[in-house]
């Protein structure tokens, strides 16, 4: 299929992009890597009147470590992050997740900001942001603001971003010596959206784990924290943690798996990821 007719504008600056978004002549969409947007346009699932291309804006891409945080510009490509020594060292959970995202050609164009803003519930990066207790920088006609990951994902493909907002960067705490991360997902084929996935972060705490954050993806409308399981895992009881998932999650079935299978696989993932969190300690 071919997309419905749309106008195209190449934003010269962030302010220009926001100005273009603010025009009252109908729905506009931001184009970053285009790896989800162009497909939805071509299938006519989305028919914006204006496409605002962010790719010409300087300063929106790049990875920086400052003030104990890793800041990733919204236009940073997956491939760039995958090759980044800073990501590998200071954001090891994202480094673990990146190879699971699509295929090389997709990672060459797709952006981290685009993935977070699109907020596909089966995507890896939104769950990582949530597991890491990260935050999102947003620019708008009224100024800049920062939203915590826990408050960012609102519903199916719905986020804290308003129609005139531009996501400019994400930030996650830089990993400390006692930071432990784990990541695993089940996808029928490598590179597919996960049937179920789990991104996890914790602090090593004596013989156990503290501050456990478990962010599941592919099991609901948004990436989901499994808070009861987090508590059980902090208490050091994996069997109880797996049992607690029954009250944390209630996945619906889709074309790849029934809800019951997803629930079962969530438990399998928890055991595997918990092992990663523990193994990383020794």
């Amino acid at each position, binding site marked *: 299929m071919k997309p419905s007719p749309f106008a195209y504008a190449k934003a010269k600056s962030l302010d220009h992009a926001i100005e273009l978004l603010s025009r009252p002549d109908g729905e506009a969409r931001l184009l970053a890597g285009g790896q989800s947007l162009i497909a939805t346009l071509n299938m006519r699932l989305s028919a914006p009147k204006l496409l605002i291309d962010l790719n010409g804006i300087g300063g929106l891409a790049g990875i920086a470590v400052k003030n104990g945080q890793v800041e990733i510009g919204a236009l940073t490509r997956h491939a760039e992050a995958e090759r980044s020594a800073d990501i590998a060292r200071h954001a090891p959970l994202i480094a673990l997740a990146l190879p699971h995202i699509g295929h090389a050609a997709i990672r060459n164009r797709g952006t981290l900001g685009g993935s977070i803003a699109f907020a596909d519930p089966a995507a890896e990066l939104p769950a990582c942001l949530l597991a890491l207790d990260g935050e999102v920088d947003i620019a708008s006609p009224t100024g800049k603001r920062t939203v915590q990951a826990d408050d960012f994902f609102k519903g199916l493909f719905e986020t804290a971003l308003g129609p005139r907002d531009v996501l400019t960067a994400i930030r996650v705490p830089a990993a400390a010596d006692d930071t432990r991360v784990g990541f695993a997902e089940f996808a*029928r084929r490598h590179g597919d959206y996960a049937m179920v996935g789990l991104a996890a972060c914790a602090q090593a705490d004596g013989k156990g784990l503290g501050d456990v954050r478990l962010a599941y993806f592919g099991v609901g409308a948004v990436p989901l924290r499994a808070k009861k399981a987090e508590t059980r895992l902090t208490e050091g009881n994996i069997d109880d943690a797996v049992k607690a998932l029954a009250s944390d999650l209630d996945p619906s079935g889709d074309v*790849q798996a029934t809800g019951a*299978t997803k629930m079962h*696989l969530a438990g399998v993932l928890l055991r595997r990821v918990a092992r990663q969190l523990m193994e990383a300690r020794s």
Partner: protein
Amino acid sequence: MKIVEDSPPILTALDRPNSYIGRSVPRPNMARLMQGRAQYVSDVVLPRMAHVAFVRSPHAHAKIKSIDAGAAKKAPGVIAVVTGAELATVITPWVGVLTHLKGLKSAPQNAIAIDRACWAGEAVCAVVARSRAEAEDGCGLVGVDYEELPAVTDPETALGPSTPVIHPSIADNLCFERVHVAGDPDKGFAEADAVVETTFMFGRHTGVCNEPRAIVADWNAGDARLTVYQGTQAPHMMQNLFAKHLSLEEHQIRVVTKDVGGSFGIKVHTYADEMATVALSKLLKRPTKFVADRIESFVTDIHARDHRVKAKIGVKNDGTITAWEIDDLTGIGPYSVYPRTSGIEANQVVNLTGGPYTCPNYRARARVVFQNKNVMCQYRAVGHPIATAVTEGLIELAAQKIGMDPLEIRRRNLIADDAHPSQGPSGIKFEALSHHSALAHLDSMMNYAGLRAEQEKLRKQGIYRGIGFASFVEVTNPSAAFYGVGGARISAQDGATVRLDGTGAIFCHTGVSEQGQGAEAVIAQCVATSFGVAMDRVRVIMGDTDNTPYGGGTWASRAAGIGGEAAWQAGKALRQNVLAVAGSILQAKPETMDIRNGIVVDAATGAERIGLDEVARICYFRPDTLPVGVQAELVATRHYVPRAWAFAFTNGIQASYLEVDTDSGFVKLLKHWCVEDCGTVINPQLVDEQVRGGVVQGIGAALFEHCLYDERGQLLNGNMADYLVPMAVEMPDIEVGHVVTPTADSELGAKGAGEAGTAGAPGCVMNAINDALRPLGAAPLTDMPFTPDKILQALGKV
């Protein structure tokens, strides 16, 4: 994927001095394809060409009450909006029946639905515009008023008294039924020590070609000629069908098939939207183009399989199989596909079940029913994966029940290699097969005993690996028995014309066609060898009904065995012609000479006598120097059709080694082997690629591919994200081995190899999964594809 060399020795009978038979020469078209210089139909642009898009029914079954085209007709770029009734003034409907499938019935199908849409995706209106985008915009403006009708979706209830009949012109939803009884199945089951009975399910899936279906039609009213550029497997068949339904003569139609990006049986059928595109060109008197997009492909490219087979086997404690019984039910959509019909797959299931084995006691029933889903028809290895999985699944379940090794039970029942000619339980005739040699080769290739020991050791560590097998027979080189006897004008024979050019190179015009499998290379190898020139002195011309001998095209693994033999014979004939005139020039006896590597030589000594360039120069430019009465004939044509056997059956055996993650229900494929016997191997690399590609498509059926419909007839996963084609990362290394039993029906002795992989892989993988899970007491899995859902359910984990 690791490529393991296992090339058979070059056959001496065909080993002429510059023979290419049995050699892995690269494809001549490789550079063109790799450099992006191929010409697909999508690349064809003609002056005044208009683009066609279709409004398609969102309902599985609906009455079309009215169509409002007013707004669409006024949209920018729109040239015409045409309904089914309007198009019916230039094209007649068709009915997909063959007389040799007795009782098969179907209803007339129109290029664009008139009054009623019978599946979700059927075209109900065409919009023709300057660009595809404008045509799609126009489609969005067409208002169709539908009255939804009850949809028939479940084959199990399609024949029930409370189910509506889809076509009022037909009494019921039964398209075709075949019952076959051979030997004495009741006696066989009575004599059995053990009987195993189960139901096998095969999910609907489809071919997913890299290049979707595409067509450009150009009706030239001045010449009264229609030129159709089409990505088809059978140009002459399409020429006939365009003529028949557009009320033209065949000679008024030229079908041109250039590069085609994969076919797998998808592109050998009549598609309503392609027929409509051709009719629109005639109606509008300008070139029209239609390229199916991926979503259209999923809802209109033929689907395949979707069989439910209740099956039973009787076996004695010594492993002797005493009887077979199957009851096959398949749903084929609302129409039997034209002109090959949708009865062939079920018919093949009846023909092929039990095929490799000696037990003659066999009872079979197959029923083919209509339903309101996309149409189903022949896709790579038609019927074979079903018959093979049923047969091989039964055998391994029976072996388990009597406590016998799965290879041993096969050894005790496979038709002996020296027992040919022979026949299968359905009466299919085998010229010569090599089941036992193939099994022995496989046994040593895979180190079966070693793998069993490894499996046993790992089970103690909680790692569950499985080994599965599938012996198979494959239909190749079909004679007229396939379609011609049923009244379809589909050529079983094929021709080749070879012409010497002015410099001693040759042109070979062939009726077979290329869709990526390497037919062009095989034809070049055959003709280069039999004539006597290097491959780079051969130009192969194919895919043009104005310029090639009449032929069937490429399907049913026929191009090498039939088209290759015609090219071989034509090359030989031209060699005789050239030697005759060379004899006149050289004052030598033609029978004492040969052509080797482009030079006429003395056959006994190999001494060079005259170059082909010199022969051509004399014959074309200085014929006055030839003796009076000598006329050089530097073109030769030969045709070939198998006559002694209806089909050149091939055989083989596959094995799969895999590991099941019993926590997650995921299957990891560790290794796959296939030993097959396609007779003379013309190009080992191409044969191995065919086998590997076929195995991968079979693995797709076993683990991944499934067209999922809901109960209202809506396809739920018609896109490349949700419909899972097998991808390289999940594929195992596939080792290919050969046994060579040439057919005596041709001089070349080549049989087909295109479908062997697909025939055996699904059953083989199924058996391996069940072997892996056996110690855990899981009920055998028999419902393809084997998803984590199903495996976890079998393990009682969900």
